[in-house]
């Protein structure tokens, strides 16, 4: 059964279909949320928040996007809300100014990405970890394609500054 068919069945309140989709998406969502700096406990809670939305809103899924980008979009929104609760320690967006970044040759790319603002980090993770196109990422983030490219451009500039040897 395809993911679209599962969503149709979930819209009819078929909880077996919900469980099937949950099991299929759990590893991917866990990876995404952990890469966005959520803790394990937060990731588990957010995954259930995501599927609560899937359960309630699957009837509104019209198929303009793929099920994958729709679900990852919900995940991104929920993750940002979770991170906002820690807004004093977690920069969410804005332009990271590479000139203020102190190079640290001991950093690896994962640690460096964790230090990016969350919106930049999401673009990097969705591109390199999950292999989405910039158009799909624009759908997931609900922003124009050029915004995705700009966030990636700034993220790469910051990463280069951080990883400079």
């Amino acid at each position, binding site marked *: 059964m395809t993911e679209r068919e599962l969503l149709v069945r979930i819209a009819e309140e078929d909880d077996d279909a919900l469980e099937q989709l949950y099991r299929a998406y759990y590893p991917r969502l866990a990876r995404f949320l952990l890469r966005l700096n959520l803790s394990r406990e937060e990731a588990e809670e957010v995954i259930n928040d995501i599927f609560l939305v899937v359960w309630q809103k699957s009837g509104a899924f019209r198929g303009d996007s793929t099920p994958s980008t729709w679900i990852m979009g919900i995940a991104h929104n929920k993750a940002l809300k979770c991170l906002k609760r820690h807004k004093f320690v977690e920069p969410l967006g804005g332009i990271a100014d590479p000139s203020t970044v102190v190079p640290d040759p001991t950093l690896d790319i994962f640690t460096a990405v964790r230090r990016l603002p969350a919106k930049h980090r999401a673009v990097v993770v969705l591109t390199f970890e999950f292999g989405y*196109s910039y158009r799909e990422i624009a759908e997931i983030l609900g922003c124009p394609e050029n915004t995705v490219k700009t966030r990636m451009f700034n993220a790469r500039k910051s990463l280069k500054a951080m990883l400079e040897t």
Partner: protein
Amino acid sequence: MKGHDAFTALIPWYVNGTLDERDMAQLADHLASCHACAREVEATLADARAWHGRPHLEHEATLQGRDANFARLVRRLSPSQHHKHKVRWAAARPRNLAAVLVITLTVGSVWVWRASAPVDTPFEAMTAAPTPVRGTVMQVIFQPTTTEREVRELLLDAGGELVGSPSPSGVYRIALDDVSDPSAYAARLQRHPAVRWAEVERR
């Protein structure tokens, strides 16, 4: 025609292989003549290679919690949402309504039997001849508080299916295809909180 910066911005998706044909062809043309972008491709490729093959340390631990986490989700769906939806869903579809009625009656019969019989009443024989089935058959009496969902989850977990209707005294017959040690399995079922009594059917 795109400028240099527009091509540079496409490089991460050139590296992850998701550019469409038009973008790909234009960027390939640009790369042939732009050394700065060619170096950027090399640097991005190196980052992409470093990225892969490094699982998140917490990922495995999070995966292990999947089943328990799904159970928590199910609890959040019921009874306020899940149950309400189920009733509306059933009411909208006559064949589902019939299924819900059968389940309600069977769970109800277990409850009536439980309420009218002393706890230590020995199991009474079924009045109808059992439906013949292949494989191992378990006879199970569920706790009176067991819901239809719990029965279904238990069946899913066991890889079994109900055979026919329950007896008048609420004994369910569950056919299992692949059980190496039926007695041990019956003992395991017996320990399940939804199960009041379980035994391998003697044939």
